[in-house]
């Protein structure tokens, strides 16, 4: 009996291991296939000039410099709005409130918000920021809309990260004469930094890759923006228009490649910059 159990256990163990391995390699394979396809299709038009020149003839020639700048600007402003709001909400929900129907409602609301398709956010942003508040198609309108869109992600991940800091560590802070806000600022937030940054990076990826939301609120101008009140075009929107309008499939592929590498680079940079001290 014992032996039988042992044997079947090892057999299923092996099956389980193989199964998990297969799924992992499949996922890695799909990712590699996408990257390879993009590189194959897009590398032809890739050059230094692609990043440093302005688009010519609707984007058939030239580069994407103003679009690159707009995209980074859009992402920076969106996160500058969403990160303090989101982390602040998470701190409030975890540190300052007792569980009650109010916090449940806030949490439920945030979760619902996370499930709303981005085009709905685009429509909402268009009505509120572009029309009602009179900001017009602008980077500011787009950034505000994108901030609303990624807020739930940031709240949720920050909340989890803050909750993961053990209560005993907080008590060490109190025992050394720290006030509640000092404990949060000097102990809890630094210690949950890694998780909070993961959330921010996820949000950043969504912001940079977002299309529907941005078309409605920031517009499609290819000019270099001179202020946050200018209309602009993001990389994802540029790709969409190049492909959808049949302007240049080659340039669209190169744009897609650049977009993917941008996200990769930004993630890498954020990890090195903020995550470094955490990895022991």
């Amino acid at each position, binding site marked *: 009996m014992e032996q039988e159990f042992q044997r079947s256990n090892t057999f299923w163990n092996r099956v389980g291991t193989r199964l998990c391995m297969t799924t992992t390699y499949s996922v890695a394979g799909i990712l590699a296939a996408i990257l390879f396809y993009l590189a194959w299709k897009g590398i032809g038009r890739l050059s230094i000039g692609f990043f440093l020149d302005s688009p010519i003839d609707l984007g058939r020639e030239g580069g994407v410099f103003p679009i690159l700048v707009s995209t980074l600007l859009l992402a920076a402003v969106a996160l500058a709005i969403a990160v303090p709001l989101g982390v602040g909400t998470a701190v409030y929900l975890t540190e300052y409130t007792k569980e009650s129907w109010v916090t449940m409602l806030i949490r439920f609301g945030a979760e619902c918000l996370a499930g709303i398709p981005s085009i709905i956010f685009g429509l909402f942003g268009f009505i509120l920021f572009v029309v009602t508040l009179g900001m017009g198609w602008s980077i500011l309108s787009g950034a505000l809309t994108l901030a609303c869109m990624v807020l739930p992600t940031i709240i949720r991940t920050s909340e989890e990260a803050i909750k993961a800091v053990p209560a005993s560590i907080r008590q060490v802070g109190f025992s050394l004469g720290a006030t509640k806000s000092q404990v949060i600022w000097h102990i809890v937030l630094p210690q949950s930094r890694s998780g909070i940054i993961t959330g921010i990076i996820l949000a950043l990826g969504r912001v940079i890759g977002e299309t529907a939301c941005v078309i409605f609120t920031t517009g499609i101008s290819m000019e270099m923006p001179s202020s946050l009140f200018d209309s602009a075009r993001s990389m994802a929107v540029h790709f969409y228009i190049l492909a959808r309008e049949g302007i240049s499939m080659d340039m669209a592929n190169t744009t897609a490649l650049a977009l993917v590498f941008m996200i990769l680079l930004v993630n890498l940079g954020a990890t090195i910059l903020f995550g470094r001290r955490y990895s*022991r």
Partner: protein
Amino acid sequence: MTEAAMKEIILKAEGLSYAYDRPGKVPNGPVLDNINLDVERGTIFAIIGPSQSGKSTFLRLINRLQEVTATGALSGRILFEGRDIYASDYDPFRLRREVGFCFDKPLALDMSIAENITFGPRLAGITSKDDLGAIIEETLRASNLWDEVKDRLSMNANRLSGGQKQRLSLARTLALHPRLLLLDEPCSALDPIATARIEEALVSMKARTTCVLVTNNTKQASRLADRTAFFLMSKLVEVGPTKEFFTSPRDKKTDDYISGRFG
């Protein structure tokens, strides 16, 4: 030291009772029931007793750490240097700087060894590099850790071993120069060698601070303490000079506990 200084009472509990608030639940009775005791300055005062006897709660009430994590009803008084620490005008944050607390689990803040120690002093407003450096060396020497970490003060403290972390906690607590040091089973998670190093540190610290040591280890109390108290089921059963306490306990329950018949 003069006779008068030896007898100075740094901590006094007067008719102290405490019960947790358990909203919606049947109250379980008090965790502490009418505790009266005195601690003299410059001594080590040990509290022994089985778990759930209220000794840790008593300790957490002395620097008002209890109210950070739980709500409860307190009656009676705790006097630190003659002042009622639960008086409405008493500043708990200042109290926690003057009355240090060392936890039972080895807990390092997620920062460097040096930053762990200077955390309290920096919050208290000490910014001079020289002053902080002096505090680091002094407290690490006092807690028997200096020789092991002096070359890697900027290393993350979580890389230390359990015993080292516990000595670091001690150093971190000492960094505020507390006049009273509360230790909640500081050796419960440590092996005998690490325990011995902590005990050495505690004995050598008697000159600079007063210690109240809660311990599950009766032998530890007999080794270290000047006076020992026995808590059982929320009550203070017996308190006295350690030698008498262990050789000729007055209460039968104390005798049973220290000779290992229960607990």
